[in-house]
């Protein structure tokens, strides 16, 4: 794999994480537990969507370097099938109840903020600039989701139980965040990508501290699911895309 091909793949991983999680948060619009939360959660979705658009734009430019032409954000979002999506399995998991959504966001945000901070020092100026902007947003996301983990974990008996189940149920999707393939390793060696393996210890420490404050137990690292970043997804992604892509697929000639 040339380094541009590896970079394209890497950028799509970053973009797809944002888009898919934003799409999930979009499902909550108008249905949150309290209006302030509805607004805050839509805000997170908007940030993630905005980040995805920046990553797609750069991915299109990198693709153009390889092939002469590159796809635009809407082609990436609406004209790829599930196996071409590169997002983590974690972010495509269904919303469940509010605690499930918070747990998913929390596990992701804690990783995302570390990743973006590392990428802000990328030797690729475009990557560094997008990551620096996104890291500020992700810092707020991570604070907010951690806050809610603590509130729900150390709230009522019922909320504690639900929050623990939510964390337990999603834990097997966290291993994938720290796996590195050959393309990513080469990019990391060149200082373009972050070495995800190096994020594991700080993530463990940060997640552990929040779980402890929330009076929740950190699950043991058992079997970890993976495949999202090579296009092997859970059954959920196909449905998410069927909904999201409906209009551009049904009316391929239309401009919206």
């Amino acid at each position, binding site marked *: 794999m040339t380094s541009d091909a590896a970079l394209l793949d890497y950028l799509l991983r970053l973009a797809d994480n944002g*888009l898919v999680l*934003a*799409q999930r948060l*979009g*499902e909550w*619009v*108008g*249905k*949150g*537990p*309290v*209006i*302030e*939360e*509805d*607004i805050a959660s*839509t*805000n997170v*979705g*908007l940030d993630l*969507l*905005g980040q*995805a*658009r920046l990553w*797609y734009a750069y991915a299109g430019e990198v693709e153009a370097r390889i092939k002469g032409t590159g796809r635009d*954000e*809407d082609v990436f*979002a*609406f004209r790829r099938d599930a196996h071409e999506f590169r997002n983590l399995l974690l972010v495509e998991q269904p919303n469940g*109840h*509010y*605690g499930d959504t918070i747990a998913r966001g929390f596990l992701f945000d804690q990783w995302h903020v570390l990743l973006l901070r590392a990428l802000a020092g990328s030797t690729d100026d475009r990557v560094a600039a997008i990551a620096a902007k996104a890291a500020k947003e992700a810092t707020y996301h991570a604070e907010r989701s951690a806050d809610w983990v*603590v*509130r*729900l974990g*150390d*709230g*009522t008996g*019922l*909320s504690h139980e*639900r929050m623990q189940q939510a964390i337990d149920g999603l834990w097997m999707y966290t291993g994938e965040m720290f796996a590195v393939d050959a393309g990513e390793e080469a990019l990391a060696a060149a200082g373009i990508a972050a070495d995800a393996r190096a994020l594991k210890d700080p993530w463990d420490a940060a997640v552990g501290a929040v779980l402890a404050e929330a009076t929740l137990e950190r699950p043991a690292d058992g079997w970890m699911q993976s495949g999202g970043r090579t296009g092997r997804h859970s059954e959920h992604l196909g449905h998410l895309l069927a*909904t*999201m892509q*409906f*209009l*551009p697929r049904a*009316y391929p*000639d*239309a*401009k*919206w």
Partner: protein
Amino acid sequence: MYAQMVDTGLRKLRDAAELSPEERAFQARIDADVKVEPKDWMPEAYRRTLVRQIQQHAHSEIVGMLPEGNWVTRAPSLKRKAILMAKIQDEGGHGLYLYSAAETLGVSRDDLIADLHAGKVKYSSIFNYPTLNWADIGAIGWLVDGAAIMNQIPLCRCSYGPYARAMVRICKEESFHQRQGFDIMIAMAQGTAEQKAMAQDALDRWWWPSLMMFGPPDADSVHSAQSMQWKVKLLSNDELRQRFVDQTVPQAEYLGLAVPDADLKWNAERGHYDFGAIDWSEFHAVLKGNGPCNRDRLRTRVKAWEDGEWVREAAVAHADKRAARAARAA
């Protein structure tokens, strides 16, 4: 409007001789355009009317998130998705400002929401219509936000300070929404034959309900005269409706879409468009709960509230624990 039929609790306008000295002084201040503030004395009927009006308006913002939320996951481009999410988020914010304005009148947001869920208070009839194709999102911004602005700009000058100030903030955002909606309509009307058909279908379905947003004709609006004397309503329903028609018809022409009214024509003598008779039986049916979506909208809101109960309880329990810990540490 977002508050279409606000009951003032009074059967007829009273003249100055029938007012108590306090009421006379109150009316004199309103006539002099002095804003009423929460701590000022106000007639009980004025307070109750405002609570009704502001809460109908607040509920409309919140329930109004649902028909648009119906298309967030299916917005056809990332840019449109982002704009739509931001718009719906604004509407939630409008709901919050308005609940806060209502709370200055001595009611609580939770009680107002309980009234909504119990079906005791209304929200705008417009949100009981379904969003069936993507052009509906354009039509809502263009027509529904457009009608809202028409009504709310005068309300920036209404007599109750907190309500007037909430309106100023809200109006700025509503005009963005209207432009964004019209922009969707342009793309649809200039798009493929299928898109144009969606745009026409959306206008066909939203036109008459939009005109109904301004409320019953002046002749049938028993409560309008009192509301106007109190300056919690500044222009009559029919006046606002006419302004809306006059503004919107040329926009429909620009889009190349047909307004679904055979009687619509420019009246050079009046300097206004004449338009056909509104089917008020439909309006009253929707207000009574028989619109296509009344049941779904309320169920969705109630379900969101009930599903969120454990979350709200946990937040309160956690805050209590924190406070107790802080007290022990002190």
